[in-house]
């Protein structure tokens, strides 16, 4: 039957497993069957490095068989329902309800409906409270788990922070619990005592109208606050020396080598820059040895360096030099995302690409200097224009610029600054002598809508309404025109909904359930996103989106305060005040700003 189903769907290799590097074990030989669940398509999920790391890590255990499951696309979902077949794991093809534990990866809020849909397709009751003793434990982790409350009704426990050690501790506890014959609650009480585990059913929120007053533990095993876990030494930390090589082309179809975690910059809008603190690097020696093993074991023809800001790696010139010696010999290409454009990086790009010149990407984020200081972007207009000069001088024709609108303290003048800056970038290309027959430059400004995120200095800010955003988008288009530039912007309604769930609380659970019932899924995919259905869900549940997009009082309790990400509220408040005054904060290497992450005494804080 499975063969028939596969023959009826568009991309069967999404569902067959068996890729080179995938792990197969006899389920009878293991004590723990775990399934990593990614609430999006295979191509997206397999591109996520965290998922790959944890898959291979868990499979190093003799007592565990870790498999994978992804959200099926429409055609497959239809086939499953038509054939009365539950959602299955790729490796064994056993239904997900036959597993001991399912772990969802939460990378963006708009995948929450898919989490619920995957449970429904697995015929597992959505709510933890309805699952009883028979069903698998459902856990979740990833960056969105730093505000776990919107999914509190559905997830048995959350893993907060970096997963390498935490997952192993939880599996150890599970193995012991399975032997004990005790009820599920006993296991939850045990893991609630592990640093980094949040068991939502052990906490009770109190509300006052729109506000959440508190979230307090109601079980003695649960700590008042759950502290994020980090890996202290990146060189000692597990990193897979072989990775799965998918059949079909996935989004990031290459070796991903993680250079470091965290970011020294401290941009005030950026959640990743706050929640992954402190900066911890892998040594160049370790990276080179990993690169070598990965190139040999995967056969990939491309390797990409992963971090929040490639240029900030302390030994970048030495490391890239050595890495290029290796990749050139093996005829493997090297991709360097999030590289700052300066003379060093241009020389580097020249060595990498030799001839083929694709586009360059650059993120000024805001159009005026005032606004860039508000968000602590730490670059000037001259930096932007100089980078453009270097890039044009180096023969690059296409530059993509990333911006945001809807930022706190933004005026229409700041919005208009975006197309004006893009135009200035275009103008720098005219400073160069004209070469006959040469293609003119093309600038693309991609403007997204700012969404205030938990654990950032902007977590209290009001989010722009869809109408306000549309007004600003109009200004973007009308300020200045040039044949040499294009301005793109995003669906503002999607940003609003993303913001609702980003800063949401437990009361959104019923809205989510209703939305799934109405058929919402794959909300991040424009062909699927249906705002009207969402509006219907909110109305049906008597919940207002404005409750979540509103400005929060600076002293108001925030639902994600039950999670301690290592950055203190005092620091966030101070950063917010500085933002209002347009004052910048130096990067972590220049001067410590006392965010709180130094309590770990590792990485950049230790240096």
């Amino acid at each position: 039957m499975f063969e028939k189903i596969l023959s009826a769907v568009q991309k069967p290799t999404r569902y067959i497993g068996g890729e080179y590097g995938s792990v197969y074990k006899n389920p009878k030989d293991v004590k723990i069957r775990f399934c990593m669940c990614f609430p999006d398509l295979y191509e997206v999920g397999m591109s996520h490095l965290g998922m790959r790391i944890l898959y291979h890590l868990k499979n190093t255990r003799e007592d565990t068989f870790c498999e994978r499951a992804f959200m099926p696309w429409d055609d497959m979902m239809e086939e499953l329902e038509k054939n009365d077949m539950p959602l299955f794991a790729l490796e064994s093809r056993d239904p997900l309800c036959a597993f001991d534990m399912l772990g969802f990866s939460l990378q963006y809020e708009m995948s929450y409906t898919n989490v619920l849909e995957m449970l429904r397709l697995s015929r597992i009751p959505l709510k933890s409270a309805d699952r009883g003793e028979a069903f698998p434990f459902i856990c979740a982790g990833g960056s969105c788990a730093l505000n776990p409350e919107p999914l509190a009704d559905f997830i048995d426990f959350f893993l907060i922070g970096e997963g390498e050690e935490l997952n192993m501790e939880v599996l150890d506890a599970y193995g012991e619990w399975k032997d004990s014959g005790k009820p599920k609650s006993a296991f939850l009480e045990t893991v609630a005592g592990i640093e980094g585990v949040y068991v939502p059913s052990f906490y009770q929120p109190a509300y006052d109208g729109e506000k959440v007053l508190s979230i307090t533990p109601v079980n003695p095993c649960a700590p008042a606050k759950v502290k994020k876990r980090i890996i202290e030494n990146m060189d000692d930390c597990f990193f897979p020396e072989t990775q799965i090589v998918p059949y079909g082309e996935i989004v990031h179809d290459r070796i991903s080598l993680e250079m470091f975690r965290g970011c020294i910059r401290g941009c005030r809008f950026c959640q990743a820059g706050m929640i992954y603190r402190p900066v911890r690097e892998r040594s160049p020696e370790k990276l080179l040895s990993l690169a070598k093993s990965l190139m040999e074991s995967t056969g990939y023809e491309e390797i990409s360096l992963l971090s929040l800001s490639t240029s900030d790696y302390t030994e970048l010139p030495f490391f890239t030099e050595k890495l290029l010696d290796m990749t050139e010999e093996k005829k493997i290409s090297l991709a360097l995302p999030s590289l700052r454009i300066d003379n060093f990086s241009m020389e580097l790009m020249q060595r990498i690409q030799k001839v083929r010149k694709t586009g360059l990407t650059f993120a000024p984020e805001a159009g005026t200097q005032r606004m860039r200081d508000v968000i602590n972007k730490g670059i000037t207009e001259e930096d932007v224009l100089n980078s453009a000069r270097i890039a044009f001088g180096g023969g690059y024709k296409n530059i993509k610029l990333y911006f945001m609108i809807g930022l706190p303290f933004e005026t229409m003048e700041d919005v208009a600054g975006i197309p004006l800056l893009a135009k200035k970038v275009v103008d720098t290309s005219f400073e160069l002598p004209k070469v006959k027959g040469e293609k003119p430059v093309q600038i693309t400004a991609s403007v997204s809508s700012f969404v205030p995120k938990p654990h950032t200095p902007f977590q209290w800010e009001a989010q722009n309404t869809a109408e306000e955003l549309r007004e600003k988008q109009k200004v973007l288009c009308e300020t200045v025109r040039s044949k040499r530039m294009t301005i793109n912007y995003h669906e503002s309604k999607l940003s609003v909904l993303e913001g609702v769930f980003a800063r949401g609380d437990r009361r959104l659970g019923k809205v989510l359930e209703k939305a799934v019932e109405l058929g919402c899924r794959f909300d991040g995919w424009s062909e699927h996103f249906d705002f009207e259905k969402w509006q219907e869900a909110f109305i049906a549940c008597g919940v207002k989106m404005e409750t979540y997009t509103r400005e929060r009082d600076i002293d108001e309790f925030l639902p994600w305060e039950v999670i301690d990400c290592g950055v203190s509220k005092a620091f966030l408040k101070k950063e917010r005040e500085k933002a209002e005054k347009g004052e910048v904060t130096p990067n972590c290497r220049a001067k410590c700003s006392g965010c709180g992450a130094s309590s770990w005494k590792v990485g950049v804080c230790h240096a």
Partner: protein
Amino acid sequence: MHKYIIRYAKRGDAKFVSHLDFLRLIQRAMRRAELPLKFSEGFNPHPCLSFAQPLGVGVCGEKELFEVELTTACDDIAERLAPKMPRGIEIVEAVPCEKNNFAKISRGVYAVRPEVMPTEAQLSAFMEKTEILTEKKTKSGIKTADIRPDIFSAKLGEDRILFRLATGSTANLKPQTVMQALCEVTDGYDCGFCRYTRLCLTDENNNEI
């Protein structure tokens, strides 16, 4: 120049891997096997590989082939390559070869295992037709084509039908199209779900390549 012809089988779920994905898969497997691949010249060098007539998605292959060029002679290609393959792809052998052997491929032998077998009479009636018109989707719209000249033989087995079909660059007929036509022209026959396997590729004299 060290040129080799590599024979392989594509079975089980691997049949769902499209030709384009398969090309990439083989390139990566060759790298994993650390074979001394010869790369093409130019700005974007890629390994010198050439494949025989592509297998359609959903069709298994028993004796498929591709050619590869290496910079030095190598006598353990198959041994090195076999463990570097994903599930369902088996390397059978690698033999040195001279010139390109794929130009002469013009036919393929296919085994079709349908849920419902046709009768001997139904299959003969089908083969006795002088013309079998089918509709074919092309870039410029739907075209009607006569597939009869591209069916060289059909033989009924116990649970499978063996077809010898045009398989090459000048004429190419998919076994799925044949089964669809068989159902369309035969009153009261519906093959149901079919499993397809290409048994071998041959030249126009039915000699295996």
